[in-house]
């Protein structure tokens, strides 16, 4: 009846029980709070059933926040264990638990923090920047969010029920095959990624179409903001790469569920095939993460330098080149597999070629500051730190791309330092910059600048301390994923340093979290009184009030410049007309949420081999899809008169302030 699920699967060690207890208490507390405040109806109407990308974007970021806490907790456990488990000391985690934690850390951070944060910002900003009232497929957008949320709930469930995968975040076979991982862990991992992956593909299609088809009049592709360009490139990568992930995981699940032999050691399977396939998805995925980071910085640097972006055309071509080349470098993740030197050389050179457009971007940002008026607000601080860390990370990346050097540092902590330099120093710092920059746009008030700065210095110092020694540890022969090591290696002092660095980052992250609540609490004090353009912005999102009205633009703008708002401010373009029109807004629908819920049920049931429940989940998904597909797209009408009224009320309200 319950498949493989037994009472044993609810029993965990002390550490995990604590995490589960706090998670359950947090959830129950939240539900109780909503009951207490009698906000269910509001929650349902305004948020859970919404198809408004601005609302969906905020919900993405809320889920990301929860997942970030989990992924960060995992990271702290890894660091604590490695600082303790030297020689005879076993630390506080068993080998199996440690392996679960690092697998969960990687999966959580890449899929649910990196991707989630990006899709959050994309939802919030892309329609505003292209002068659109909505995305191309509002329902698909909601559906993608709910699939993302369902998958992240499955991650949290895996903490409480049973074990997570111990095979690392990419689950190389044959370790991830039944023979060596018979438990539910890898199945959890497969279904989490399948659900999240389908959501991501749907989002990719949605935003590609949105960007290509819904730009406002006059916004030709070469007048599109660079952030939108970066998202366009990232979505192209998503559409080409994610189906590969889905197919690969599907084959792995056939191996595990139906005893097939795609990637097994015996029976004619070939694990090398999996490694190739997963990186054919995996390397573009790296650029799906970093390209939006580039895009964010390309918006921030010009704004805070009071200049246009230096070399716009170069930037676009650099993005396109990176997009193309990211598909021809996957083999550099396994030079050590024994390919011939010819093959290795090809992929090495392709990898180095990517460094050229990336370098161009860095110089263009630098020269955007040249002869500008640079305001060092906290987004610019993040950019400053990004530049320092990203160039170091890029340098070590080129080192890793040279096969004979790679043989000596592959799978060592040198590699870990490199990609965390890119993921934290590159991606996360730029996401923080973007979050701080656009925060007043979607809330109407600022994040507390002072707390932001404290957090920044903790992050920068902590990051350097937590990851620079890893380069040296790699040179000392320390491989990744070690749950214990000998005294004779002399790694211990450096591991302690690294753990201290992690604690400093923890302080920074806590300040940020506190800063977020503090800013929300004191929002009256931090209110943006400029009526929507606090940073002297340049692109369309700053031309409308903050937070934007439900229809974004009362009048769809017509642009003739890369920086339309900047052009108006400088008198180079006429200000917007004022003739209002009827606006259609898609109706709310709970079907996206229902499909997400049934996907969660399906994923959970498949993980535990509860087939009757899986069939219910599948039928649920199917029925809801049919209902959605057979209904007409329903819209709410906001008449021109209502729009005019709302706009004028806002102007009066601003005048009153």
């Amino acid at each position, binding site marked *: 009846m319950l498949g493989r699920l037994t009472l044993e699967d609810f029993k965990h060690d002390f550490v995990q029980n604590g995490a589960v207890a706090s998670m359950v208490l947090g959830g129950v507390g939240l539900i109780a709070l909503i009951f207490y405040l009698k906000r269910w109806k509001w929650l349902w109407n305004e948020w859970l059933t919404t198809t408004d990308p601005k609302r969906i974007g905020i919900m993405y970021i809320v889920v990301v926040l929860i997942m970030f806490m989990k992924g960060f907790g995992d990271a702290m456990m890894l660091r604590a264990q490695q600082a303790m488990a030297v020689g005879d000391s076993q630390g506080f985690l068993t080998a199996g638990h440690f392996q679960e934690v690092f697998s969960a850390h990687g999966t959580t951070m890449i899929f649910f923090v990196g991707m989630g944060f990006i899709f959050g910002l994309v939802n919030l900003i892309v329609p505003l920047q292209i002068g659109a009232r909505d995305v191309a497929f509002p329902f698909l957008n909601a559906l993608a969010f709910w699939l993302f949320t369902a998958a992240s709930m499955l991650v949290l469930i895996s903490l409480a029920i049973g074990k997570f995968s*111990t095979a690392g975040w990419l689950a*190389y076979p*044959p*370790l991830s095959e039944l023979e060596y991982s018979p438990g539910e862990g890898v199945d959890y991992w497969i279904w989490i990624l399948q659900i999240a992956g389908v959501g991501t593909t749907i989002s990719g299609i949605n935003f590609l179409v949105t960007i290509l088809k819904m730009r406002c009049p006059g916004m030709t592709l070469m007048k599109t903001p660079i952030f939108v360009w970066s998202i366009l490139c990232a979505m192209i990568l998503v559409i080409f790469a994610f189906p590969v992930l889905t197919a690969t995981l599907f084959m792995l699940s056939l191996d595990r569920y139906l005893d097939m032999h795609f990637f097994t*050691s*015996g*029976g004619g399977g070939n694990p*090398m095939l999996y490694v190739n396939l997963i990186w054919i998805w995996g390397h573009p995925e790296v650029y799906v993460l970093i390209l939006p980071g580039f895009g964010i910085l390309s918006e921030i640097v010009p704004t805070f330098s*009071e*200049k246009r972006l230096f*070399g*716009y055309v170069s930037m676009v071509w650099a993005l396109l080149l990176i997009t193309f080349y990211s598909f021809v470098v996957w083999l550099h993740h396994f030079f*050590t597999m*024994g390919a011939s*030197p010819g093959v*290795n*050389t090809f992929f*090495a050179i392709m990898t*180095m070629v990517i460094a*050229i457009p990336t370098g161009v971007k860095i110089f263009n940002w*630098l020269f955007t*500051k*040249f*002869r*500008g008026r640079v305001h*060092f607000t906290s987004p610019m601080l993040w950019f*400053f*730190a990004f*530049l*320092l860390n990203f*160039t170091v990370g890029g*340098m070590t990346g080129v*080192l890793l791309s*040279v096969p*004979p050097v790679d*043989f*000596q540092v*592959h*799978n060592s902590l040198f590699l870990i330092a490199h990609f965390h330099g890119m993921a934290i120093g590159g991606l996360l710092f730029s996401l923080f910059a973007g979050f701080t920059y656009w925060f007043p746009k979607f809330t109407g008030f600022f994040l507390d600048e002072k707390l932001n700065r404290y957090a920044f*210095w903790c992050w*920068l*110092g902590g990051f*350097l301390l937590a990851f620079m*020694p890893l*380069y*040296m540890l790699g*040179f*000392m*022969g320390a*491989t990744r*994923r*070690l*749950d*214990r090591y*000998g005294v*004779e*290696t*002399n*790694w211990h002092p*450096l591991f302690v340093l690294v753990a201290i660095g992690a604690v400093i980052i923890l302080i920074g992250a806590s300040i940020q979290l506190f800063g977020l609540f503090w800013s929300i609490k004191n929002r009256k004090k931090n209110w943006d009184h400029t009526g929507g353009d606090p940073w002297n912005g340049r692109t369309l999102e700053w031309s409308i009030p903050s937070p934007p009205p439900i229809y974004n633009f009362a009048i769809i703008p017509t642009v003739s410049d890369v920086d339309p708002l900047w052009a108006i401010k400088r008198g180079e373009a006429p200000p917007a007309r004022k003739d209002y029109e009827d606006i259609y807004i898609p109706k709310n629908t709970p079907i996206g949420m229902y499909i997400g819920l049934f996907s969660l049920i399906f994923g959970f049931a498949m993980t535990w081999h509860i087939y009757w429940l899986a069939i219910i989940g599948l039928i649920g998904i199917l029925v809801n899809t049919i209902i959605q597909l057979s209904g007409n797209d329903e819209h709410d009408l906001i008449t021109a008169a209502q729009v005019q009224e709302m706009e004028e009320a806002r102007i009066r309200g601003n005048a009153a302030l």
Partner: protein
Amino acid sequence: MKKPNNPVYYMLLFSGILLFIFLIMQPLEILHFRDYISVLFPKGDIALEQRNLLFIVQIIMLLVIIPVFICTFIFSWKYRADNPKGVYDPDLVDNIFLEFVWWGVPFVIVVLISILTWYKTYELDPYKPIQSEKKAITIQVVALQWKWLFIYPEENIASLNFLQFPKDTPLHFEITADAPMNSFWIPALGGQIYAMSKMKTELYLIANQEGDFRGSSANISGEGFAAMHFIARASSEENYQQWVESIKQSQKGLNWESYSKIALPSQEDAPETYNLTDPKLFDKILNKYMHPKKE
């Protein structure tokens, strides 16, 4: 700096100090841990070549990194918004010459490193035999759960979690696994290569100094992965011969049956030596996964 009462000044100063600390930390770490940094202070020619290549590429890369760092600091200071002497030119958004420089310079650098990489990748191909007057010793390596088995087919001996060989003699490793994929790595002697069941990868290494080096597994292979390391001992020729002879005397034989027992999952096994009684053992291990699965 006349006006230190400027937040930008403190920002740059503070981050400069941070960077300086981490810059100075590297040589200090190197001095302090000198004997343990096997990749940077290798004991064999292959690792030495790889290290030198690392240094060369690093230096070439610094040609780009250092100007970026300098520009970052100078531009941040010079073009800060409150600089009374700052030049402001909002329409400076394109400069063909400058753009040509930073598409061109990285391009030239990448071409340079590419040529070097091409040449060195062929030269340091792990499958390429090492030129030497001495004949290479073949050692067959099997990654197990969670230990390493070394078979010396020419000497008809085998050892577990312990590897001995004479210095200045090329070593020809033939590597496979009878376990999840792993990676065979002796950092002091040179780069790693994957160990995969059913497949044979090869690796040529050489030790130019005597000593005990740490050999490790570099790819996650399950529960006992962390403790799956071994000692690689480079000794004198005589010492090596003695070691071989002493094993040949021993009673412990290694054939398919005893191998199958060793291959069962276990952790932290003490080093062990065997008299190889089945010379085809390695091929049998390779072929183990070749035929269709029998149920």
